[in-house]
């Protein structure tokens, strides 16, 4: 199996996607060997339940394999996977009544990643540090920064994924940066940065 992977070395995602569309199982394997971990990481930012997130990835893989003969070409395999995965995860969370009848925006305000983190985190000091972070960045700001600088999506792709316009994405990034720096006194700057690190641990 690992030897088979060698044959995909230096081959772009998009070419591998074309082989997958021809029904090549090894190409399908390669796509998820490249992206499984990234998708899992993204999912866990929404909801810290690895079992549920991996269920959604399983559903994603089943769907992608089933659609191999009908799926279109894509300019960004990563974007296609993240978008489809996000859709599946949100549907699953709705089914589980996590989102109930609320809109996604409501959900982002109320069931944020930090909320989950705080709920599970018992260490009082760390809790306070994350609370500081909470007051600085909105869930949407965090998601946009994460998609931009960890998943390396373009502002246009983020806009499509979140169903907002590209300018809004740029504004969100801009405001997040400003908050990070401006609302934190210089002397507390390192502490603040430390809380960001703790939050994403």
């Amino acid at each position: 199996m690992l030897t088979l992977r060698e044959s995909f070395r230096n081959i772009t995602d998009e070419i591998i996607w074309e082989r997958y569309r021809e029904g090549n199982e090894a190409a399908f394997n390669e796509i998820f060997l490249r992206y499984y971990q990234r998708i899992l990481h993204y999912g866990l930012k929404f909801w810290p339940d690895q079992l549920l997130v991996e269920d959604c990835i399983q559903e994603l893989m089943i769907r992608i394999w089933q659609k191999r003969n009908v799926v279109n070409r894509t300019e960004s395999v990563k974007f296609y996977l993240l978008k489809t995965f996000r859709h599946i995860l949100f549907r699953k969370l709705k089914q589980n009544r996590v989102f109930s009848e609320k809109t996604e925006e409501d959900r982002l305000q109320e069931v944020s990643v930090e909320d989950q983190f705080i709920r599970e985190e018992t260490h009082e000091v760390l809790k306070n540090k994350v609370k500081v972070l909470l007051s600085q960045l909105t869930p949407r700001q965090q998601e946009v920064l994460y998609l931009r600088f960890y998943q390396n999506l373009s502002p246009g792709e983020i806009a499509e994924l979140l169903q907002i316009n590209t300018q809004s994405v740029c504004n969100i990034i801009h405001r997040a940066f400003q908050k990070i720096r401006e609302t934190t006194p210089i002397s507390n700057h390192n502490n603040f940065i430390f809380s960001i690190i703790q939050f994403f641990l």
Partner: protein
Amino acid sequence: MAQQHLKLLDELLSHPRFQEWAVGNAPELDPYWENWTRHDPDRKEVLLIARRIALSFHTGVPTISNEYVYGKINQAISTAHTYQEDDTVDVKRSNQSFIFAAAASLL
């Protein structure tokens, strides 16, 4: 933080080589970044923020092996085939019903 600093922060975080270095995968670039910030406190501060942000995103990545992922992929393919077989059986059943109905109508 001034406008040009925000732009610099965005550029740094978007740069793949910066990201590699920020998460500790390219220590050979240490002298380059040291030089880049020398005599420029603003750059130094922006670099510090950018590095910590990059690092914060990088940490928390679940460690899973290729073998584990292979297992998950095989499970998905196997399930997809099962669904496909179920669909085929359903189609056959529905065709059979149609044939029976057609035959009955001829009687």
